[in-house]
């Protein structure tokens, strides 16, 4: 992993926007550097209108992760090549680009979810206008099982099963995702992602939807770059870096990315995209907890 002194930027996890030039592209070439994922930045104030303004494509979110964990974030399966990632974020066909052969599937919240497994997908007969084939694990709403049931079952350990690998296979873990300043929560199924990168990219799309939707909610509010005053623009650019945090089983808030992905999905109860200024206190505690675990 590339470390130039305390070049924190090299360890930052940022999603690249479609077509955006990420100035940190250089560190991508070192395959083990944290993949750069830039996200839009928001000035969170809770008002819909704020999201209208925050469509400046140069603005970035930054999910900061600890240096130690950055290496682990780059999972070969989920991440693909770094070029691949940068070219394809924000587009619909995340699934097919990951080489897994699965179709694009949309989860109920409008975010795009990669078909997780290379299992053969059942093609739907007679579906004239459908572009989406139901891969059984991934179609939102099917099979019709309530999230309460899914979450309860997946958190039970099967004491009867001799096979220690077998967990109750509901294969689904919905957690709430809130974002400071966003008007609505979302729920994501952690089991549909295979890595932190997957998750970050899905979250970006999910919460950038608020921008798009609000931006068009009344046509005269559609922002244009020219329309933004310079001070507004500066606010956006300087304003907020956001970090992704999660509440674990013990009720502690941790930075996402500190632990291996599987451990994270096991212990994550909810997610929160918070302003990094609020998250400062988390880092030391997270590191300590991490040390205690290892």
């Amino acid at each position, binding site marked *: 992993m590339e470390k130039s002194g305390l070049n924190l930027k090299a360890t930052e996890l940022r999603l690249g926007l479609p077509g955006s030039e990420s100035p940190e592209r250089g560190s991508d070439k070192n395959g083990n550097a944290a993949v750069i994922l830039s996200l839009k930045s928001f000035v969170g104030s809770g008002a*819909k209108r704020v999201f209208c303004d925050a469509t400046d494509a140069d603005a970035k979110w930054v999910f900061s992760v600890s240096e130690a964990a950055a290496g682990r974030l780059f999972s070969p399966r989920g991440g693909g090549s770094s070029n691949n990632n940068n070219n394809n974020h924000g587009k619909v066909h995340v699934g097919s680009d990951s080489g897994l052969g699965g179709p694009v599937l949309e989860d*109920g919240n409008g975010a795009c979810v990669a078909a997780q497994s290379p299992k053969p997908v059942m093609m739907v007969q007679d579906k004239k206008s459908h572009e989406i084939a139901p891969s059984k694990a991934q179609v939102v*709403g099917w099979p019709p099982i309530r999230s309460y049931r899914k979450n309860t079952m997946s958190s039970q350990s099967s004491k*009867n099963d001799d096979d220690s690998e077998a967990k*109750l296979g509901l*294969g689904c873990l919905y957690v709430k995702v809130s974002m400071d300043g966003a008007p609505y*929560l979302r729920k994501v199924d952690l089991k549909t992602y295979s890595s932190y990168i997957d998750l970050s990219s899905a979250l970006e799309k999910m919460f950038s939807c608020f921008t*798009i939707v609000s931006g*068009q909610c009344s046509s005269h509010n559609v922002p244009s770059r020219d329309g933004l005053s310079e001070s507004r623009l500066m606010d956006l650019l300087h304003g907020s870096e956001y970090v992704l945090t999660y509440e674990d089983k013990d009720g502690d808030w941790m930075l996402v990315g500190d632990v291996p992905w599987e451990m994270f999905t096991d212990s994550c109860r909810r997610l929160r995209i918070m302003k990094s200024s609020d998250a400062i206190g988390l880092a030391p505690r997270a590191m300590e907890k991490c040390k205690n675990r290892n």
Partner: protein
Amino acid sequence: MSYSSLPEDVLEHVFSFVQSDKDRNVISLVCKSWYEIERWCRRRIFVGNCYAVSPRMAIRRFPEVRSVELKGKPHFADFNLVPEGWGGYVYPWIRAMAGGYPWLEELKLKRMVVTDESLELIAKSLKNFKVLVLSSCEGFSTHGLAAIAADCKNLKELDLWESDVEDPSGNWLSKFPDTCTSLVSLNIACLGSEVSFSALERLVVRCPNLRTLRLNRAVPLEKLAHLLRQAPQLVELGTGTYSADLRPDIFSNLAGAFSGCKELKSLSGFWDVVPAYLPAVYSVCSGLTTLNLSYATIQSPDLIKLVSQCPKLQCLWVLDYIEDSGLEALAATCKDLRELRVFPSEPFGDEPNVSLTEQGLVLVSEGCPKLESVLYFCRRMSNDALVTIAKNRPSMIRFRLCIIDPQTPDYLTLEPLDVGFGAIVQHCKDLRRLSLSGLLTDRVFEYIGTYAKKLEMLSVAFAGESDLGLHHVLSGCDSLRKLEIMDCPFGDKALLANAAKLETMRSLWMSSCSVSFEACKLLGQKMPRLNVEVIDESGPPDSRPELPVKKLYIYRTVTGRRIDMPGFVWNVGEDSALRLS
């Protein structure tokens, strides 16, 4: 002497014997004076879609109501198809009822967003409040519950059935004052964190009328015996976690406690179950009418042992670990069985993990003459099996079959399952609810439209071939109230041709179908008493009119468009071009 000359109070007395909403509604249509008398003495109202009517209108028409039941989100919200923030807020109702129904006693909510503020308002304003049922609700925390506990002096029932509760502390239970002795029913099974056991125990001890107690998982098995001994009068019990170290003293204590509960009719809970502790409940099995083992990961042999001791069982909810062999035992023992629900233990696996097939259901349909309600998840089905089930049980009222892989054909013939479901609707003339699955063409909908005259709710996924399918249902099902469809090739024609039908129904949900935005607009314009709502999180649907609408929810209403729509819901009506934000 004509009926219309009977004095009002006599009429009112007569009406008081009529409880059903339908009948009450009919009474109110007889003449103006009956309408007036009836509306003053109606004591309970059920609003199946909280957006169909405004609280103000409801209160104005029925001023003396004591019990209100409301439902919010569409049913498919259970399966994550409705984004957060969609709506279903109860607060406006509570605010209205705080003033309009100060003597309200009961509030039952399903799929609604309830805030702590709402709960606090109930606690503060409704002095005679007795019953709170929050079924699949969300948006509140134990702080709100604390307010209810502290201030509702006559609370009889608090039921949080499968609600999503923010659970910062378990201490809310201690807010029940020592003077509270009125509890009859307490269901906290959905709460995640620990409640104070001593507070719970004290509550149980001082409420002699407690009949229903559903504990949450955090209550350890070792303490269950203690609670049971304090409340041997319990009729319905939900255990906490059903696992403990294997110790004879714990077992005998538990078994002893259960044997003291002579009134127990219903058991649930059984999380993390250790099979060795199951025999502790054997002493109550002979009286059990309801058994909910749907979270219990017990294998078939243990299930058989259990179920074989419950001859009076009327309702069984279980995981597919029961397998065909367990269902065979069920069919042999439980001749009083009315309702069976079999849930999947591993719905996302590729291969079946248990030996549960269509045979199990066939056996139960043969052996249980009173079977009328079925929810069955399985991986294969045949037309033959469905025809057999239909012929065995013409009294079926609810039939929900979920073959896990979409569009699975008859495994014997590889044909669609049209004929099988056709037999169900043909033989089961009183069928009110039906959920379809497997490979299905338009033919099944033709059968449904032709025969399912009493059908009130139909759920469809991955079925049909053309608009004709939808047309059959909308034009043929005379009693249809709720229709929910996902991933079917149904488009504009059937919808527009049957626009008037939609006003006779509560609601229609269509997602991932082929309905165009233009058609939605047309429908919205033609039908002012429908709200045609398009849900689209990626932007206004008219910006990409060539694409089918992602999610569509249409419902009848007398209040026009709702004012609490989030940014991703568009009401497509007369002025659909300008959506008010």
